[in-house]
């Protein structure tokens, strides 16, 4: 049974959903692709929400059109600790095992991915990594062990960098780590990496296969390239401690991957 049926959500074909929080001036623009909504947690801020999930190519075009609309209005986006970008990755067609394999792959890479999202995002309360809030990992392991979906939908996990509550609303995993940014190319690269991670993780048989793959990869860089392709260089550039980050991520991910002895009949 796939995620869509498991969680009883409506069918969505687009791969990516994006929400961009912004603070600054002259921000109120609407385009064909984007809705704009107020956000009480921001100071003079708004949130741009992609009206419909789209392909990666569609996301690129939507980001360009938003950038042009903002420039046309003379908008000024400022750096702020309050803003962030949330990317939803559609996992409706994945089986539960494939979804956990994706999550395991993400957890191994989480330290490096979060570094890419911005120094201030590491340990940030709105997108806590597995190592910052281990309750999240324990809960994922319980979800695997018991098959009780409440562990995934519990609102207590919403402020982790990977939010599983959205499985129940959209059949997506929400990634919350990216900083608020006026650099829409970075946002596109972030979405592309997450989508690649989803797709490449399907080449592994199970979450345990991810851990074994990491152990056999002969170093963090090779494993990274296997999962995010040429965009690995974006992570390598900002992570001089890449091997350590990935090793620590692997240790967190192990608790999910080995929550059950075997995934054969999961």
């Amino acid at each position, binding site marked *: 049974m796939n995620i869509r049926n498991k969680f009883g959500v409506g069918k969505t074909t687009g791969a990516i959903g994006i929400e961009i929080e912004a603070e600054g001036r002259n921000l109120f623009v609407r385009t064909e692709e984007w809705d704009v909504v107020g956000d009480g947690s921001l100071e003079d801020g708004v949130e741009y929400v992609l009206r419909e999930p789209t392909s990666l190519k569609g996301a690129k075009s939507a980001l360009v059109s938003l950038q042009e609309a903002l420039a046309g209005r003379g908008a000024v986006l400022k750096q702020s*600790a309050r803003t962030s970008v949330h990317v939803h990755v559609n996992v409706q067609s994945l089986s539960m095992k494939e979804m956990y394999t994706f999550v395991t792959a993400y957890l191994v890479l989480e330290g490096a991915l979060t570094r890419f999202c911005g120094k201030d995002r590491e340990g940030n*309360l709105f997108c806590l990594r597995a190592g910052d809030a281990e309750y*999240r990992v324990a809960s994922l392991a319980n979800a695997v062990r018991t098959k009780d979906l409440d562990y995934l939908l519990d609102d207590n996990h919403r402020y982790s960098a990977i939010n599983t509550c959205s499985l129940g609303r959209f059949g997506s995993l929400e990634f919350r780590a990216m900083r608020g940014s006026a650099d829409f190319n970075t946002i596109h690269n972030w979405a592309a990496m997450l989508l690649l991670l989803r797709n490449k993780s399907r080449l592994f048989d199970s979450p345990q296969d991810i*851990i074994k793959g990491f152990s056999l990869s002969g170093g963090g860089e090779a494993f990274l390239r296997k999962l995010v392709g040429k965009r690995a260089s974006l992570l390598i550039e900002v992570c001089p401690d890449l091997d350590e980050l990935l090793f620590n991520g692997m240790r967190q991910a192990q608790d999910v991957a080995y929550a059950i002895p075997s995934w054969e009949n999961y």
Partner: protein
Amino acid sequence: MRYDSTAYANSRLAGTIVKCAGKAVYVSECFGERLAKIRVLPHGNEDVVNLDNLDLSPIKLGYVNIGGCAEYLQRIPKRRDWRQGLRANNVNNAGVLDKGAAFLVNPTYPTPEKVVDRVFRCGDESMAFSRHFSARYDGCIRHKGRQSVGEVCLDDEDHASWKLYDDFLYLEEALKEALDEHKK
């Protein structure tokens, strides 16, 4: 991490525990020109410091030995909390938060030999020898506070052997590191 206003900093930090100068501190309030009133944990003095001197990176949590028991402390990524620091509302074990945070900023664990002595011979309920591993009076090895992952047994000469159950052999490397840590 740097907050652009004292009011915003106060909304994220007041009533929580963060780090300052290598110690865990409780932030009572942020006020004035980027100032914070703090108290060093667990029983230190009050002080006033510049907001920029607070270290807002997460305190790495794990086991803390308190009152003859190994208690595991972990953060919950709660939505309706909105605080950067630790507080009773966003951890799993609020009763040990103050002492635990103070200890875990710079933890020193007893050796595995000492742990065996305390739980098998001195009547302690349990004791941790690393951030992620502890032993219990009945010989259970516990990992991250939530399950028995193996057994510690004493042979005729009172030497301890640490053995993981088959389902937890993936922890072998981590356990070995934790046991060997004290030999360095």
